[in-house]
């Protein structure tokens, strides 16, 4: 029932071409879904921050979308959108936009009031206040949200493939599960974990590049 590490590695090597073929499908879904999810999350956060009425109207709804387990909506999405890529991407959008929106909203609200007052005294308009104060103040929270979203995107892709599809690591998983091939099962689990970690590392790298002021100490040395 529990394969030895050696067996898992052997399975990984023997299944490597097949794993890679499925990985490409999953990653494609994850990237498209993540990109769209982050875009939707960003737009939602900006709109909700600009118009208080939208915030009041949609914030509770936003929370509700997160209380529904994704395994429960995934079959519905399959029924509505078929077995192709669309239902997978929709599921990823639903699960990734939330951490981005919430993070950004918090970030926008944490922007320093005095700094905003200063820019207003300099005659800045709303867009300029957003660009020079609100958005940069929200960057740390945006990246925290992105980290979570990145991990969710892979998991979301796998779950939706599980419930119907022609390719991808989720489909591969259901197949080896039915064959009771535990070694292959563990091989694919480790692969998914590794991919999630790699995506999060990528976000971390982008974070460092976008916020260079966080990586220097008093003397200006790079940390």
């Amino acid at each position, binding site marked *: 029932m529990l394969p030895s590490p050696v067996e898992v590695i052997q399975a990984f090597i023997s299944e490597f071409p097949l794993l890679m073929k499925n990985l490409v499908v999953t990653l494609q879904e994850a990237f498209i879904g993540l990109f769209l999810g982050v875009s939707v999350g960003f737009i939602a956060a900006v709109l909700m921050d600009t118009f208080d009425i939208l915030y009041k109207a949609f914030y509770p709804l936003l929370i509700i979308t997160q209380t529904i387990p994704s395994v429960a909506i995934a079959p519905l999405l399959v029924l509505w959108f078929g077995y192709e890529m669309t239902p997978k991407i929709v599921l990823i959008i639903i699960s990734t936009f939330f951490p981005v929106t919430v993070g950004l909203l918090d970030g926008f609200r944490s922007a*320093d009031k*005095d*700094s905003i*007052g*200063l*820019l*207003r*005294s*300099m*005659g*800045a308009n709303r867009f*300029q206040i957003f660009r*020079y*104060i609100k958005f*940069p103040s929200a*960057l740390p929270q945006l990246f925290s949200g992105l980290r979570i979203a990145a991990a969710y995107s892979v998991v979301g892709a796998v779950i939706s493939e599980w419930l119907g599809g022609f390719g991808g690591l989720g489909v591969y998983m259901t197949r080896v599960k039915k064959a009771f091939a535990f070694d292959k099962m563990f091989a694919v689990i480790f692969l998914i974990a590794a991919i999630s970690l790699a995506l999060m590392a990528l976000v971390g790298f982008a974070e460092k590049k976008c*916020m260079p*002021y966080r990586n*220097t*100490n*008093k*003397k*200006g040395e790079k940390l």
Partner: protein
Amino acid sequence: MKKLEVKNISKSFDGKPVLKDISIELNQGEIVCLLGVSGGGKTTLFNIISGLLTPDSGQILLDGKDITNQPGYVSYMLQKDLLLPYRTIEDNAALPLLLKGAKKKEARTQVHPMFAQFGLEGTQKKYPAQLSGGMRQRAALLRTYMFSKDVALLDEPFSALDTLTKSAMHKWYLNVMENIKLSTLFITHDIDEAILISDRIYLLSGSPGEIAGEIIIKEKKPRKDDFNLTPDFLQYKKKILSLL
């Protein structure tokens, strides 16, 4: 020549009067202090002059033109330096130019020659967190100056600094002002600071705040280092204390 005129400004919050019939003037190239206790409505007055607050009555004139309730004419600097932590010093200083629509590159070229004059050489590419409190205030003043070479409102800019740094900053400040001739209204609650740096002092006291007196400091500029130890200085101080 009159640069800025504050005419009969009154303001109250929730029925409680804060400022009553304030009238002051600022001439071209002058440094004028507004001296009074904390919480006496000085900052409210500055918010009105800078256009962030609407007065209940009265007018603000810049070069004879009514700018009441219009932000974007006079520059404003606070006790907190409010440098944006995610922008380098040069980009912080260039911010007012960017807000006015300048391109990033041309804004930087306009700012660079000012760094030496403000004693900020070598800090262009640093972030605010890498500078000391005194240096950050210098950068904040440079940003203030980049916004308007006309009139600046400084709200207790040095009061968060320790005594020694503060005294060094006074010297630096008077030095810079000799060169740039910025007409300045300066809020402080420190009597010595007011006498040391200003051409004229308005005393604001009472609740609601009213102008309790005006004192002209005749000592020539640049002032000697030991001005604050002379009998003249003490005379001014006595007079201010009796009026407050």
